[in-house]
C-alpha cells in the first residue's frame, strides 16, 4: 500500500511571515473549528445520530483555511463531497451546516442536501457538488460571469486528486486558461481516491504539470502548513484579480479518516496504520499551535482557549440541531422551481 509517494516528508516548517497576531489567531481558530466540527460528527455518526454520509476533512484543515484567508467574502467557492471544511473556512454559518447534516429544516439546504450539499450564497458558496468533477465546469461559469461583468470577484474551486481523471477537469482547465478567467483550482492531493492510492490511478504523480499544459500557472504548497498555503493562495489571488488567468495550487495533504468517515479504512486493508500515524504526527493544527507558542505570538493558554471556544461553539450547534424540527413531509416537492406556487 504505502509506496514512497505516501510517506510524508518532515513536519510542516513555518516561517514567521509578518502576519498580524489577529490573523494568526484566526487561522488557528478556523482550523480548530473545522477539526472539532468533523471529529464530533464522527462520534455522532457512530452513535447513529447522523445518517447522511459524511466525508470528513480531518487532517486537511490547513488547505481550506489558508486558501479562504486570502479571499474576500464575496469571492466564489466551489467544493466537493468533502466540503465541510471549505464551507466553514469561507465563513458559512456553522449552525446551519450542522443542522443540515442532522437533516433538519433549519439546515443551510433546508434538509434537502445533507452533508455533501452545503450552500451559503451570502459568502459566495452557491452549492457544493457530490459528483466527482461536477463543480469544475460550473466554477468556470462563475469566473466567466465576473469576467464579463468586469468585476474583481474571483472563483476558487477545491478538488481532490481523483478529479483530473475525469474529462470535465481537462475541459474546464482548457476553457479557463484560453479565456484567461479569474479562477483558482486548489488540488487537495490527499493521495487516495476512495480505496485506490494515487499510483494505482495515474502513471505519473503530476497533476500540476497537466494544468500547466493547459495554460495554468502552478504553485505547490505543503497542505499541512497553513502559512504556506496562504502565501500560495495570495499569489494566485493576485494573478486572478489582475486578469492574468488561472492558477492551480497543489496542496499535498492527508485525510485522517477513511473515505467516508468515521472509520480509518485500516480494518478494510486499504491503508496501513503506520502511514496514518506518520501523517497524524504532521497534524496541521498541533504544529501551527506550537509555532505560535514558540514564536511567542500566542501563549499556550490562549491556544487552549481557542480550542475550548471551538468546542463550545460546536456543542451549541449540536444542541441547536437536535432541537430543530425535521422538514415537513408535506413540503417534499417544494422548491423544485423558483416562482409561483413554490
Amino acid at each position: 500500500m504505502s509506496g514512497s509517494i505516501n510517506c510524508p516528508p518532515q513536519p510542516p516548517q513555518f516561517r514567521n511571515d509578518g502576519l498580524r497576531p489577529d490573523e494568526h489567531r484566526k487561522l488557528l481558530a478556523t482550523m480548530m473549528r473545522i477539526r472539532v466540527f468533523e471529529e464530533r460528527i464522527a462520534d455522532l455518526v457512530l452513535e447513529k445520530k447522523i445518517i447522511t454520509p459524511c466525508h470528513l476533512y480531518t487532517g486537511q484543515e490547513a488547505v481550506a483555511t489558508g486558501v479562504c484567508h486570502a479571499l474576500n467574502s464575496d469571492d466564489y467557492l466551489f467544493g466537493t463531497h468533502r466540503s465541510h471544511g471549505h464551507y466553514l473556512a469561507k465563513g458559512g454559518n456553522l449552525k446551519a451546516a450542522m443542522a443540515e447534516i442532522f437533516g433538519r429544516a433549519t439546515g443551510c439546504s433546508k434538509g434537502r442536501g445533507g452533508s455533501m450539499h452545503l450552500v451559503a450564497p451570502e459568502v459566495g458558496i452557491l452549492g457544493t457538488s457530490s459528483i466527482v468533477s461536477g463543480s469544475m465546469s460550473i466554477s468556470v461559469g462563475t469566473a466567466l460571469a465576473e469576467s464579463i461583468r468586469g468585476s474583481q470577484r474571483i472563483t476558487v474551486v477545491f478538488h481532490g486528486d481523483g478529479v483530473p481523471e475525469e474529462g470535465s477537469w481537462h475541459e474546464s482547465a482548457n476553457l479557463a486558461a484560453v479565456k484567461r478567467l479569474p479562477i483558482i483550482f486548489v488540488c487537495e492531493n490527499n493521495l487516495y481516491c476512495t480505496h485506490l492510492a494515487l499510483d494505482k490511478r495515474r502513471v505519473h504523480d503530476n497533476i500540476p504539470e497537466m494544468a500547466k499544459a493547459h495554460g495554468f500557472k502552478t504553485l505547490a504548497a505543503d497542505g499541512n502548513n497553513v502559512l504556506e498555503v496562504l502565501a500560495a493562495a495570495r499569489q494566485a489571488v493576485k494573478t486572478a484579480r489582475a486578469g492574468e488567468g488561472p492558477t492551480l495550487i497543489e496542496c499535498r495533504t492527508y485525510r485522517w479518516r477513511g473515505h467516508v468517515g468515521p472509520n480509518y479504512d485500516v480494518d478494510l486493508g486499504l491503508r496501513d496504520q503506520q502511514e496514518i500515524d506518520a501523517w497524524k504526527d504532521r497534524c496541521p493544527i498541533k504544529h501551527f499551535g506550537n509555532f505560535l507558542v514558540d514564536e511567542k505570538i500566542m501563549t499556550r493558554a490562549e491556544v487552549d482557549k481557542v480550542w475550548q471556544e471551538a468546542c463550545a461553539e460546536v456543542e451549541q450547534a449540536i444542541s441547536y440541531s437536535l432541537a430543530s424540527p425535521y422538514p415537513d413531509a408535506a413540503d417534499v416537492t417544494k422548491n423544485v422551481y423558483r416562482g409561483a406556487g413554490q
Partner: protein
Amino acid sequence: MTVISYAKAINEAHRQLLATDERVFLIGQGVESPWCVGTTTLGLVEQFGTTRVIDTPISELAVTGSAIGAAMTGMRPIVFHPRMDFMYLALDPIINHCASWHYMFGGAVNVPVTIRGIVNRGNEQAAQHSQSPYSLYCHVPGLKVVAPASPYDAKGLLVAAVRDDNPVLYIDDRWLYQTEEEVPDEIYEVPLGKGKICREGADVTVVAVSYLVKEAMTAAAELAKQGISVEVIDPRTLKPLDTDLILSSVKKTGRLVIADPDNPICSLGDHISSLVYGSLFGSLKTSIQRVNLPDCPVPASTSLEKAYFPNYQSIIAAVKRMF
C-alpha cells in the same frame, strides 16, 4: 438449488460467466473496493485476476467507451457503475455510440456490451446519490433494459444480458441485495423480453418494477385479507416490454396500477398507460392508477425520504382508489 441473496446471485452470475466464457471481462470503479459494489464483485479479482476484473480511475466516460469498443471486437464486457447517478458522465458513449451503432452502420457491427447500473439510494444521500432513471434509458432506441427484482432473476438476467448480441443495461438495486430465495446452482438464462406473473389475481393488475415488486407482493397479501384479489406482474425486462403479458392480465382484471420507482413524466409508467389505454380502452373499469417518485429531485432528510419513496402502503392506496 441453494437459497442465496440477490447480491450473491449477481456475484455468482459474474463468476460463472467469467469461468465459462473467455470473452467476458468486468470493468468499473470499485471492483476491489469493499463498499462500492456491495458484495457483488467479492472474490472475483482473486479468482480471475486483474486482467479480466479491472478496477479503474474515476473516468466513467472513458471506461464505458472502452467497454463498448471492446464489445465491437467480439468481447463480452460487463461495465458497471456503482451508482446510476455517476453513469450520466458516460451518456455520450452509451447513447450516441453504443445504442446507435448497429443501426447506423446497417447492421455491420454489433455491440454486445452489458452496462450494469446500480441503484443506491436512501440514508440521506440526496439528489446526486439516489437516482433510478430506468425510463430515461428505455427512451433510447437500440438499448435493451432489464431490472431484476429477485435473486433468481438477478442471476438469470445477467447471464442473458451478457449473451445477448446487443447492448443491455442491467439495473440492480441495493435495496434488494439482502432478499433471499432458491436459485439454481448452475448457470442459466432468464430470457430477455419476458415478464412474469408473481401472483395471480382477478380484480386488479399491479405492474411493478424493481423494489416495488416486493412492495406489491406485500400489498397484495394485505388486500387479499380485505377481499381484493391482486395480480402482480414483474416485467423484468423494461425494454423490450412483455406487452402481451400485461395486456392479457389487464384484459382479465379490468384495472391497472403501475408502480415504477422513477420520476413520472415521460416514463415507463406513461408508456405502459398509453399501451393499455390504446389497446384496452373499452375494457377498463376505471382509470389507471400510478405509483411513482414525485417529479422532484431526491431529498436528503429521512423525513422527506419517507414521503418521497413509495412503499406497499402507496400501492394499497392506489388500489383502493379504484373501488
